[in-house]
């Protein structure tokens, strides 16, 4: 990345306050530059303070807690005992497994359905805006409220879902969607697909609209079928956005809490206890803040890994555009 050709953006801490022009003109080297840099940090200070107060301190505190054994108001330093415990307990590994399944399936369908809807919406001529707003609704509704609505819909005796499905003969008796371990995970996954798809759809729709129309026309002239146009024009043009949005979605979904907390609380028999729900249950039903913090730190590590991947994908995409 060459500084001379790109304006400094707010996100680049090392360039703060130093504009393009001042960098490239040698007049500004020397004491002037140092002063500019100092002024830059003054401007940055409030945001920096807030970040430290709201993110760094709680994080440090959580890490500190994860090294303690807490009982009621008492806590004793126990080093890495909590980590040792969780790595040797089946509960953590089960929860991780459920998290991986939940996240993988959800992200896969967010992308698949999101892309499908985006393709449809791009072509829609009739009631375009209505459809766009309509498909966005699940994303606008707060997840916990959406989850409550779904609990009603899935209610075994009076729920709409059972009523409709048994009406067309798909299920022959009333299903306890959230009460049966095998069905509960599928149910929360479906609800999360409902929740998470619109955001992906919106991103991909924007991406689709950015693909130059003449590439499709050239492909049509070259004799490409609709599928070949998708395969050789749409996908390559969308590739980078697909990587970025799936990683972003993955980071979001693996730490998603609301829907499962509201719908099943992790049950039945821990069948839907993803890591964030496990953390909650450990902290607030078992009152074990130390262990909960340790799981939290592990989850943070996992998320950081994906974040690094995300940042790399972003940089790669930018490099390709230049």
């Amino acid at each position, binding site marked *: 990345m060459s500084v001379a050709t790109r304006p400094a953006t707010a996100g680049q801490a090392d360039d703060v306050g130093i504009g393009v022009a001042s960098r490239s003109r040698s007049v500004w080297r020397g004491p002037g530059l140092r002063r500019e840099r100092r002024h830059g940090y003054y401007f940055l200070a409030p945001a920096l303070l807030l970040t430290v107060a709201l993110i760094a301190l709680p994080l440090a505190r959580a890490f500190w807690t994860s090294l303690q054994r807490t009982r009621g108001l008492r806590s004793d330093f126990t080093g890495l005992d909590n980590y040792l415990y969780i790595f040797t307990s089946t509960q953590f590994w089960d929860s991780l497994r459920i998290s991986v399944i939940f996240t993988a399936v959800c992200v896969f369908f967010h992308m698949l359905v999101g892309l499908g809807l985006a393709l449809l919406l791009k072509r829609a001529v009739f009631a375009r805006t209505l459809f766009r707003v309509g498909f966005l609704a699940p994303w606008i509704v707060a997840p916990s409220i959406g989850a409550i609505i779904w609990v009603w819909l899935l209610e075994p005796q009076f729920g709409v879902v059972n009523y409709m499905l048994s009406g067309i003969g798909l299920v022959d008796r009333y299903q306890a969607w959230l009460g049966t371990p095998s069905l509960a995970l599928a149910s929360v996954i479906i609800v999360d697909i409902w929740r998470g798809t619109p955001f992906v759809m919106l991103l991909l729709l924007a991406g689709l609209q950015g693909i*130059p129309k*003449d*590439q499709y*026309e*050239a*492909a*049509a*002239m*070259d*004799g*490409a079928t609709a599928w*070949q146009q998708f395969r*050789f*024009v749409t996908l*390559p*043009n969308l*590739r980078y956005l697909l990587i970025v949005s799936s990683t972003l979605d993955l980071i979001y979904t693996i730490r998603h809490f609301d829907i499962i907390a509201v719908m099943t609380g992790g049950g039945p028999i821990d069948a839907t206890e993803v890591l964030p729900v496990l953390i909650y249950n450990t902290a607030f039903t078992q009152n074990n803040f130390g262990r909960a913090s340790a799981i939290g730190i592990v989850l943070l590590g996992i998320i950081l890994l994906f974040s690094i991947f995300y940042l790399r994908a972003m940089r790669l995409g930018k490099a390709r555009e230049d």
Partner: protein
Amino acid sequence: MAKLELSGVKKSYGSTDVLKGIDLTVEDGEFVAFVGPSGCGKSTLLRLICGLDEISEGTMAIDGHIVNDVPPSKRGIAMVFQSYALYPHMSVADNMGYALRLAGTPNGEIRQRVQAAARILRLDAYLDRKPRQLSGGQRQRVAIGRAIVREPKVFLFDEPLSNLDAALRVDMRIEIARMKERLGTTMVYVTHDQVEAMTLADKIVVLNAGKVEQIGSPLELYNKPGNRFVAGFIGSPKMNFLKLGKGCGNGSYAVAGGSVTLPVFAHAPVEIGIRPEHLTLAERGKNTLSGVVAMTEHLGSDTYAYVALNGAEETVVARIPGEKTFRPRQEVGVEVDASVIHAFAADGTAITSSGNARVAA
């Protein structure tokens, strides 16, 4: 190999009629240029020919077969887009061979044809590059190469050189002229650039507001424009128009700066047109129109002198040898080469006559 026939072709988007009945024949091997002001429907017509848009009314035939319902890829037509429309993720070779690949051509033959086209366009060294690693002129050549590789019956170009700088444009123009000689394929070429149209085309189609104004060879259009629009559109600098005032008998009419004597016409002309090179600046005299120099532009070989004729709102422009200079507001006489005056009737159509015009102050 390929003759294009359009008859009564119309195109409308909703309630707006973009093309209002185009009749046009492009002979086999002919190079036809579409020119016309922005928004007149040149691109639209090209898109109808290649099949990217549907014809609303009328028919189009290739070699006598009506192709209104034939999809673009089956018409044997290749199009070179103004924006190049290269596939960004494919190499130059893949871009050029993509149509063949889709058609199921064997790999060996694809490679052979791509290399042959690359040689013609001097792209051999760039076959493995991606489009973004090429200069504008190279990209343009890839876009043309992609069309050549398909060995189409007809080439369509939509302002292919408009994104290039002046020098490259000249190079590419020569390149296209060479390609025309070499391939002998029917070509339709849309351009804003008069020079491109005049130098490349066998036949020029002047379009205006969705209608054909005139079709003819470049010199025909230049020397015998069929109407005022074509007269004003072809040629740079533009033709000068003078409104005719009262007739004073003997075919003499008052114009700004003096009077002209015209031969007898079938209809009464209301306006005459004179090309800039048919005006010369001289001392004021009996056979000149009088005016003052408003401005001069020196182009080296030529000088354009803008002269405000007495009593006229707009200036006329004279194209005179480059070494001549005039002071601003210098009083001059404008001599008109009376043998080449164009006359126009009230509806804008050109009126011809056998006799010559005369000018008097």
